[in-house]
């Protein structure tokens, strides 16, 4: 997207709240004391929200997008089912977005995070850190290689297991597009049992977080592929900040 193109874009479309979880979701216990009680206050977007940090591929190191190789030496490799996760980043206008930074983190193949506060007894994988990142190319395309994370139990007052998932942190071109979410795997029976996945009430919306097995992109005798397309908020095509802000 060149400069003149960026400049021609206006405020963001209002966020469709029905697609997102509510703040208070009692089945997910952690939300009880961390959810604002007052309604969000709608404001007209200004330059402060329309602009945002943008990163290019220059920030990336050689193995940032290969989680099977970025926590071990050259002859070693993370333990687990090798997979490619790939897709395109679009805005709501169906336009692909280049230079989108995507940060990912995940548990290892046994469902254990390399984090001091994860007390699950599944073993750590000495060859797996669980952290990676990539940037979309000029066609809005991204991909990274990893292992399929394991499911894990978590404290939520019952017999709760998280489905296999990868955490995504996504930067668009606006601070108002900033998004953190989780990607699930097609066919996982734990998705419909998960209190966190089910904070999303609209099944069609939840389904957009489920990556699809993509046999066309499989790497022969190496890795299966999953496709996960990411849609960020869209923007009006012309500036009418004047009109939006006028009072």
């Amino acid at each position, binding site marked *: 997207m060149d*400069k003149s193109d960026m400049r021609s874009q206006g405020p963001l*479309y209002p966020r*469709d*709240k029905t*697609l997102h*979880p509510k*703040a208070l979701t009692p089945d*997910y216990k*952690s*939300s009880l*004391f*961390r959810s*604002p*009680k*007052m309604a969000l*206050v*709608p*404001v007209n977007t*200004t*330059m*402060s*929200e329309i*602009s945002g*940090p943008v990163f290019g591929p220059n920030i990336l*190191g050689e193995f*940032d997008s290969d989680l099977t190789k970025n926590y071990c030496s050259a002859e070693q490799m993370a333990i687990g089912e090798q997979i490619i996760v790939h897709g395109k980043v679009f805005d*709501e*206008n*169906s336009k692909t977005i280049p230079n989108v930074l995507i*940060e*990912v*983190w*995940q548990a290892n193949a046994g469902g254990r*995070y*390399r*984090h*001091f*506060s994860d007390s699950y007894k599944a073993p750590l994988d000495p060859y797996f*850190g669980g*952290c990676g*990142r990539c940037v979309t190319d000029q066609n809005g395309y991204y991909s990274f290689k990893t292992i399929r994370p394991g499911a894990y139990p978590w404290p939520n007052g019952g017999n709760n297991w998280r489905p296999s998932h990868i*955490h995504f*942190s996504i930067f668009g071109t606006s*601070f*108002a597009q900033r*998004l*953190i*979410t*989780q990607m699930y795997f097609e066919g996982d029976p734990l998705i419909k049992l998960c209190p966190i996945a089910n*904070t999303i009430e609209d099944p069609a919306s*939840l389904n*957009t*977080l489920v990556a699809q097995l993509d046999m066309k992109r499989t790497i022969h005798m190496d890795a299966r592929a999953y496709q996960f397309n990411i*849609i960020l*908020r*869209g923007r009006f095509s012309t500036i009418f*900040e004047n009109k939006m*802000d*006028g*009072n």
Partner: protein
Amino acid sequence: MDKLHRLKEIPSQTAGPFLHIGCVPNQIGLNTFGGIDLGSVLLSKNTEGKRITLTGKVFDGKNMPIRDGMVEIWQADANGLYQTSDTKSDGSDLNFSGWGRSHCDFESGSWIFETIKPGPVMMNNGSWMAPHISFWIVARGVNLGLNTRMYFGDEHSLNEKDPLLQELKDTKRIRTLMARKITENFYEFNIYLQGENETIFFEI
């Protein structure tokens, strides 16, 4: 508005308790990305403007500081210009990133930024926004990242003319957006997710 061919934004999910692995990996000893976490440095020695330290905590509904959350900020430079790919030609300070990220300390819950005080920002209609910093808060238990704005409590006259502050009907809650000046270069801004001091969060 053209609604043809509109796709729908994918939904948010909580960042969870292990967000550090992906967002601030060097803070938990992962020693990756060249040893420097993205967003940990906003300034260089050539950055224009008045240096300030900005710190605070994020409190939950039990009035306990959250210790597994993360805060991101986005702000204009000393001249009120944003540092983005589309404003690089507009004279914004190339020695200032404008974007910062800090996790809440694992013991105290404090987040902290070394930054500069932003200038007033001119809007397209010619009116001015008072110096302010956009905040985005994520944590375990927060299903959708929370947006708010921090203003400088000592900027009385500029704050009075700020279009967003003027629009807020609930003037009692405006104080939740004000950073407290502790010393000349040190501001404190606490964020309350619930309770009588609940911060104003915006739908932007």
